């Protein structure tokens, strides 16, 4: 478990980035951290693997205080996938790239080889094993970066804006992959502003605004509240906005997912159909 205990962080320039953050993260959790640009999402993420140490409060990873452990050691358990894959890629082949973390953690060569191939296959990158990562497309490079972090099988995975620039199919694949990961007992944290993706994946949502947590709850309850969503410079999901116009028909106000919307509408519309048939 990762615990953030009244964490505050102030930059050297004096600017306050985080105030009083309390958070618990366990295996099996799927959390989305959302908020406007500059709300502190990435700053918060960097506290989880020790890149940043809190100015006040403390961060415990499996009982250890992050101020007492090196980033390298914490990275064995906490995998942070940065937004832009180009900040990571440097190797001659995709294989070498994915092996980098494993080598840093001191695994034996046979283990490294096996683990690299396993990860590449899981992410559909096996055919590119001997290719230079720089020759791949943007979406493929993002997957290589993800593979590089997953190869060391961290217990906690943090994804920084994984859906930017991806088309719908790529997002679907990502969603399924995340589902696999947290059902295997890992903790997955996603930093994102992709409201529709969150609406369809239904994680626990933590809304950050100006360094504070302003809301915490399931996606359908947080994303359907207009004042909260506006504060975080987000927009309510289409389903939520649609159902705001339909409340007079007795529909609930916290619908964000298309499939739940369908079920609710099917019920009502079937009634209407029956009524129309009776009247004619």
């Amino acid at each position, binding site marked *: 478990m990762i615990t953030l205990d009244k964490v505050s962080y102030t930059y050297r320039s004096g600017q306050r980035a985080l105030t009083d953050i309390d958070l618990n993260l366990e295996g099996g959790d799927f959390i989305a951290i959302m908020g*406007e*640009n*500059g709300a502190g999402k990435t700053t918060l993420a960097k506290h989880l693997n020790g890149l940043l140490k809190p100015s006040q409060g403390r961060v415990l990873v499996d009982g250890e205080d992050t101020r007492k452990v090196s980033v390298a050691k914490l990275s064995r358990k906490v995998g942070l996938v940065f937004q832009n894959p180009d900040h990571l890629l440097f190797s001659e082949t995709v294989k070498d790239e994915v092996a980098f973390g494993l080598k840093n953690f001191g695994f034996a060569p046979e283990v490294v080889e096996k683990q690299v191939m396993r990860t590449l296959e899981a992410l559909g990158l096996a055919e590119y094993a001997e290719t230079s990562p720089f020759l791949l*497309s*943007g*979406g493929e490079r993002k997957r290589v970066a993800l593979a590089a972090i997953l190869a060391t099988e961290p217990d906690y995975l943090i994804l920084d804006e994984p859906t*930017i*620039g*991806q*088309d*719908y*199919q*790529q997002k*679907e694949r990502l969603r399924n992959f995340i589902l696999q990961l947290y059902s295997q007992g890992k903790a997955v944290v996603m930093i994102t*502003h992709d*409201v*529709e993706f969150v609406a369809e994946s239904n994680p626990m949502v933590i809304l950050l605004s100006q360094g504070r947590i302003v809301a915490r709850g399931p996606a359908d309850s947080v994303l359907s509240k207009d004042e909260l969503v*506006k504060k975080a*410079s*987000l*927009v309510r*999901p*289409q*389903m939520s*906005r*649609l159902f705001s*116009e*339909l409340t007079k*028909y007795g529909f609930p106000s916290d619908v964000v997912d*298309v499939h739940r*919307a*369908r079920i609710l*509408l*099917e019920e*009502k*519309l*079937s009634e*209407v*159909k029956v*009524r*129309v048939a009776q009247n004619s």
Partner: protein
Amino acid sequence: MAHAPREIILAKNLGFQYVGARKAAIQEIELTIKENEFILLTGPSGCGKTSLCRCLNGLIPNFYQGEWTGELLVDGLSVTTQLTSELSRRVGYVFQNPENQLFALTVEKDIAFGPENLGLSRQEIRQRVDEAMNVTGTLPLKDLAPYELSGGQQQRVALAGVLAMKPSVIVLDEPTSFLDPRTAEEVMKATDDLRRELGLTIVVVEHRLDLVARYAERIIVMDGGKVVADGGLEETLDEKFDLLEGLGVGVPRVSLLWTMLRRDGLVSGKVPTHVESAAASLQGMMNQ
């Protein structure tokens, strides 16, 4: 417009293959775009949308080398015979990454950059810069440096820089990818407002249709370098929904909802493209 809208972009059998590529990025493109249209260009990753855009302002074939086939006329100019610098007067291009478009050390100097290249008089440049700043709301930012701006501000400055060239067409290639949803909506609305005010033709490349559906009247869908659908947004979503879904295009959730309900025979009528029309249509169904 008093006169009938003229054809501002005309593509005949347009094709292009980058140097060293295994296959063509775009092929057999036949396209007619009229003045003042708002066009949504979409398709799965790698379908050729960006390559097509690059042809429109001459980046292909001037900046990107390769093999060109067919003809492309933009505002009367043939792209293959003009330098990008000449085409830049007719076609403006706003890129995906807000920060990498801004070159100068202050916003004002950056917006002036384009007109300066045209060799205009200093008064003319001054006038264009002031107009562009006013119309995009970037006047308060004029002495700031690019890295001091937020993503949304950067995109507005990029837009201002493009407007200062007084083009007749503006191409925006996934301009909101890095922006949060609220800012993305503002940028899209601002783009449409400018289109109406200045009579511009707009081409937006987007994966997420819901952002643009309120403004785009026409949709062009590409796959594997070819155009696979081209028509009104409503009609295409209505008749070719399965094609779009199959390609992995991010159809608006309300359109998906309606299609599912229609398949079950619970609603009838055209597929709505955005929340307001979907609400209206559903209310119509409920009130029967």
